[in-house]
């Protein structure tokens, strides 16, 4: 049985693309100037990354004495930078920080996704007094900048002895994600035809079995969409890590930021380190891009 046979669409600020827009093709700007501008923009958006990528595979001495464009006249390849950076031990080793990033990111995605799905189900499909007011409160919490919460939260963690543990990081990331997650998943859930739930109810299914057997399979794309958001957000986060993780549990972003601050001209380390940090979200992003765009159009960008 195909679980994705029912299309779960979003409630975007913009409607999905209309098929068969062949007529429009003729009206687009076809002048060579238009192509030139597009190419210039594309180059501006790729060359900086490309330059650092080339740098990361050049020998340290070359990096220090010439620009990365010299690579094309004198190609010297070395993976020594990556070896140094990925090692688990050593002054410039960042292997442990990559592991930390994974330890931080996995629960920080699972916990809010699961809890938000439960809450979104209640807000979308269970009637109880005060539901609308509560939902508006959750909706409004989206605009609270996390800066407002950091110091009191840190003091709270110190009080209950969670400061400097992964628990503080996991719980913070999960909490900060909830308002947007609930809002987004609620929108997706509202799109499911009520008849489907009604039918299950007539068959004698309770809330739990409707939730797990009927809704969850249909929500997979929505969960994927939010999951990617949260993954990118947590993996790329600096502020929460800086506040709650400290240098012991530091993820890759924090390690890189520290390196950038202390050895700002160590480009052989910075380039390779950046690429290690970049490659994971880029892979996730490219392989699940479809879901990401859908989530984006549903209004899910965390500020």
């Amino acid at each position: 049985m195909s679980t994705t046979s029912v299309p779960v669409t979003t409630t975007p600020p913009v409607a999905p693309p209309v098929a068969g827009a062949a007529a429009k093709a003729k009206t687009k700007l076809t002048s060579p100037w238009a192509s030139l501008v597009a190419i210039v923009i594309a180059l501006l958006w790729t060359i900086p990354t490309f330059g650092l990528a080339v740098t990361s595979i050049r020998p340290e001495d070359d990096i220090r004495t010439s620009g990365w464009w010299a690579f094309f006249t004198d190609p010297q390849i070395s993976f020594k930078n990556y070896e140094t950076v990925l090692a688990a031990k050593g002054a410039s080793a960042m292997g442990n920080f990559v592991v930390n990033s994974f330890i931080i990111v996995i629960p920080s995605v699972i916990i809010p996704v699961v809890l938000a799905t439960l809450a979104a189900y209640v807000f979308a499909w269970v009637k109880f007094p005060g539901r609308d007011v509560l939902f508006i409160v959750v909706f409004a919490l989206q605009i609270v900048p996390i800066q407002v919460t950091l110091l009191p939260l840190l003091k709270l963690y110190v009080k209950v002895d969670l400061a400097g543990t992964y628990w503080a990081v996991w719980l913070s990331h999960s909490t900060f994600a909830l308002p947007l997650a609930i809002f987004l998943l609620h929108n997706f859930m509202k799109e499911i035809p009520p008849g489907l739930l009604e039918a299950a109810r007539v068959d004698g299914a309770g809330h739990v079995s409707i939730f797990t057997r009927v809704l969850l399979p249909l929500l997979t794309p929505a969960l994927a969409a939010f999951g990617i958001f949260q993954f990118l957000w947590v993996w790329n986060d600096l502020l929460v890590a800086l506040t709650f993780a400290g240098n012991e549990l530091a993820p890759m972003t924090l390690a890189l930021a520290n390196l950038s601050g202390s050895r700002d001209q160590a480009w052989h380390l910075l380039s390779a380190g950046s690429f290690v940090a970049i490659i994971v979200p880029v892979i996730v992003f490219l392989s699940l891009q479809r879901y990401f765009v859908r989530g984006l159009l549903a209004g899910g960008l965390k500020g």
Partner: protein
Amino acid sequence: MLIAIAIFAAIVGSILAIASRFGGKRGDRWVAALFLLPVALMLSVGLIYPGVLTMINSFFDAHGDAFVGVDNYKTIFTSDDEINVLINTVIWVLVTPFVATGVGLLYAILVDKARIEAFAKAVIFLPMAISLVGASIIWRFVYTYRPDQPGVKQVGLLNQILVWFGFEPRQWLLESPLNTFFLVVVMIWIQAGFAMTVLSAAIKAIPDDVVEAARLDGVSPWGMFRFVTLPSIRPAVVVVLTTIGIGTLKVFDIVRTMTNGNFKTNVVANEFYTQTFRADNQGLGAALAVLLFILVIPIVIYNIRQLRASEAR
């Protein structure tokens, strides 16, 4: 980590198990309460309680001991350093959304229906997956400066381009006030992909017959953009502008990674962090956090109003 996931699974499992015992109309309330319990706990302890506490702290002194009224806010608007922080933040919030949206919109129109549209879009889109820290390092490398001496080659692209054209290399990140704009470039570079994706979808949603009718009337490409495309995608443009605006207001990673707020590049979000966790001035830090919050609110209200207006039409 595995233990944490196991504990979490046990909690969710027991919630589901208890909830499955309830049925009927009365059961609804119990199920609702059970499903909402963890969320309500986390939001009130992790978001509402600390938020309220910060608001209160913003009226107290550096260590939260003595009530000082609005002194912290006065500092923000009178001290020279803080005024510079405010000016920079205004520059960020004014420049980033408009330039990023402009570039995103231009690019979306240019590559619309092009043969390699998907690839062309991915190129602009990809920086969104890169962390602000990573992007800052990428761009700091572009701006890198080597002393202008014989035998010393530039390794930063921007300075090398200057040298190729016969100019002297410059310390881009040290010279105020231009350095703030060089930092803003990084944010634009990241956000343009977001603008392009949303606006591209909006452009594709314009009904064919509208475009066709305009074309038959002999509208020029500029006229088409001005009188057909732009009015049709106006709500999407507003959403993009406000979303990027809110994101930019809280920008922290770029400033911290590239200049650490030195050389007059500081912004509110970075100053908040410095005051709260480095300078140990909790009162001022809290006031800056509250200021961020207050600045977000009008943007959000404008956004909601625009959405309402476009729905009513």
